[in-house]
């Protein structure tokens, strides 16, 4: 009787194992197909990026950009006289920094005077 139970358990386990293995195997196969698809997609995307980089480089040919700039922009090559450095700028003619020591005149001065009285 005991043997029977053991045998039943073993047979069931074997069958369950077989079913499980079957499922896992098919799952793996499905994953593998998916992986392959993704890998192919990655390669295809990489190639597309490569192609687009080449295309971008082609579209940015200096001679084409020149034509486009001539059509849409009112820009010209820069001339030497358009470039000025800081030290070549003329100095300030007036000093705009506030003089804190000078007495405040007008109403401002009156305001400060009244506040002092209080």
């Amino acid at each position: 009787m005991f043997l029977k139970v053991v045998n039943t358990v073993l047979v069931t386990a074997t069958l369950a194992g077989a079913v499980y293995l079957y499922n896992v195997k098919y799952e793996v196969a499905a994953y593998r197909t998916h992986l392959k698809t993704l890998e192919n997609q990655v390669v295809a995307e990489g190639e597309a990026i490569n192609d687009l980089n080449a295309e971008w480089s082609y579209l940015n040919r200096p001679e084409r950009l020149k034509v486009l700039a001539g059509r849409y922009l009112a820009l010209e090559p820069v001339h030497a006289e358009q470039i000025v450095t800081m030290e070549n700028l003329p100095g300030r003619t007036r000093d705009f920094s506030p003089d804190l020591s000078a007495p405040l005149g007008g109403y401002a001065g009156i305001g400060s005077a009244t506040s002092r009285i209080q």
Partner: protein
Amino acid sequence: MSMFKRQPVVTPIGHGRAPVKAAPAGQGSGNMTAPVGSRARFVFVMAACSLCFGAITLRLVGVTALQPAGVVKSAGAAQKIRYKRPDLTDRNDIIMAKDLNKTSLYADSTKIIDVDEVVERLTAILPEIDPRRLRAKLAHKSKFIWIKRGLTPRQHARIFQLGLPGLEFERENSRVYPKGQIAAHILGHVNVDNKGTAGIEKYIDTIGLSNTDTLAPVRLSIDLRAQHAMREELIAAMKLYKAKAISAVVLDVHTGEVLAMSSLPDYDPNAPAKSLNKNTLNRMTAGVYELGSVFKAFTVAMALDVGAATLKSKYDARTAIKAASFKIDDFHAKRRILTVPEVFIYSSNIGAAKIALDVGMEQQKAFLKRIGLLTRLQTELPESRQPIFPKIWRPVNVMTIGYGHGLAVSPLQAASAAAALVNGGKLITPTFLKRSEAAALFSARQVLKPETSAKMRYLMRLNVTEGTARKADVPGYLVGGKTGTAEKATRYGYAKNKLLTSFMGTFPVNAPKYVILVVLDEPKGIEQTHGYATSGWNAAPVSAKIIARIAPMLGVLPVSNTAQPSSGAMLAAFEKEPR
């Protein structure tokens, strides 16, 4: 559950073989008391079974574990065809050459059923294919016959839909140069197998940068914007002066990097067949020329450096020199005694010849060798040529080479020597790959005294403000340089009407960053130049136009015109602070 029940085993003893044979196989396994004969048979069967299963196991391992290697092996043949190349970019990482995938068609003629059908159907889709040649090719039994490299996607789809056995497709790398002709001579080109056959493409193959697993982009020293601007000016100038050819180079004097180099006429590396035309040769590296008066810069530098002359030395240029069978005379003849700066700015042949004589034959040879003008200049570009100079150096050669005749060098070589003239005396081998100043200094050689270099900068500036190169000036960018007009050597001696004009200059001259060399081959005198075809009328103004366009791109800060130092003040400054 009877199959789990142990059956009592009847062991027939002494019955010989027959009962064992009759016994069911499943029951024999537990039999430990089999007779000797049947035991031997049992061992034999077990061994046979083990062998069979062993073979199956081995095969299984072979098929599963070793199959990938087999796949790689079969792809290896195709790998040889597909030569992978790295991208080439300019110094600012702008792509100038790239591998793209293309589909190519090949045939396995052992699988073709009806050759005539294949030929007929294919020529309908690919009309450029000659049916007779294709039939001849396919008649030959081979597993691999190229039919067409580089199909359009539409052609690919149509051939695929034919469904003919024996027609196979191969994905291949093909090289494209998206910027077209702009830097043809630098980039070079590849053959149908994607292997480099010229220029940098060939170089990267020889040093093993291509067809590896990790293809890092190769960054060139070229600045695409400057290259384009320069080439555009050269195209315009070639047309304006009706020149046969024109070429130019811009070199960084501190790193030796070639920022821009162009030689017209050029070709499209995407269709390299035209590169076979002799006229499209890279005149900057693969051609050698007697550059004429620009060599006076080297002569004067030599005399100042070895101490054979100073800026105050005087030379008698009143009468032409008669040497051997010919006469050395001045083009801009002054007929008086000239100082060294005057010899330079009036481009006196007589003066330069006498300066060279003062230096002497041995010193001249040693100096020219030192600044790299007597040996072949080796850069990354495979196209190079040995300078041509007289085998036996006679006094007359000393004089003619003093003003640039009798020694033919490649223009790039001259530009690199000119960089040494102005950068403080360091000779740096030019490069077409991006390089830092520190790396350049590592291979640099001091060939001139820094003081000599400072004096040369002064003379070059003087020549632009007061001499033959006035048209080379660009306000703000302090151009200095030397013009050269050489009569081209022909079979019948020097031709009066066939000129090679050049301008060798530097900017900004107070602290040189770049050297420019422009060479025109047989420019004609035109209305705007009052019929003159000499360098000051063509090479110098072309250089000015190029500098005006590229200097802002290269980040050269202009000097405001009021702050521009006079030549005299400059000399004083140079003498105070030699650099």
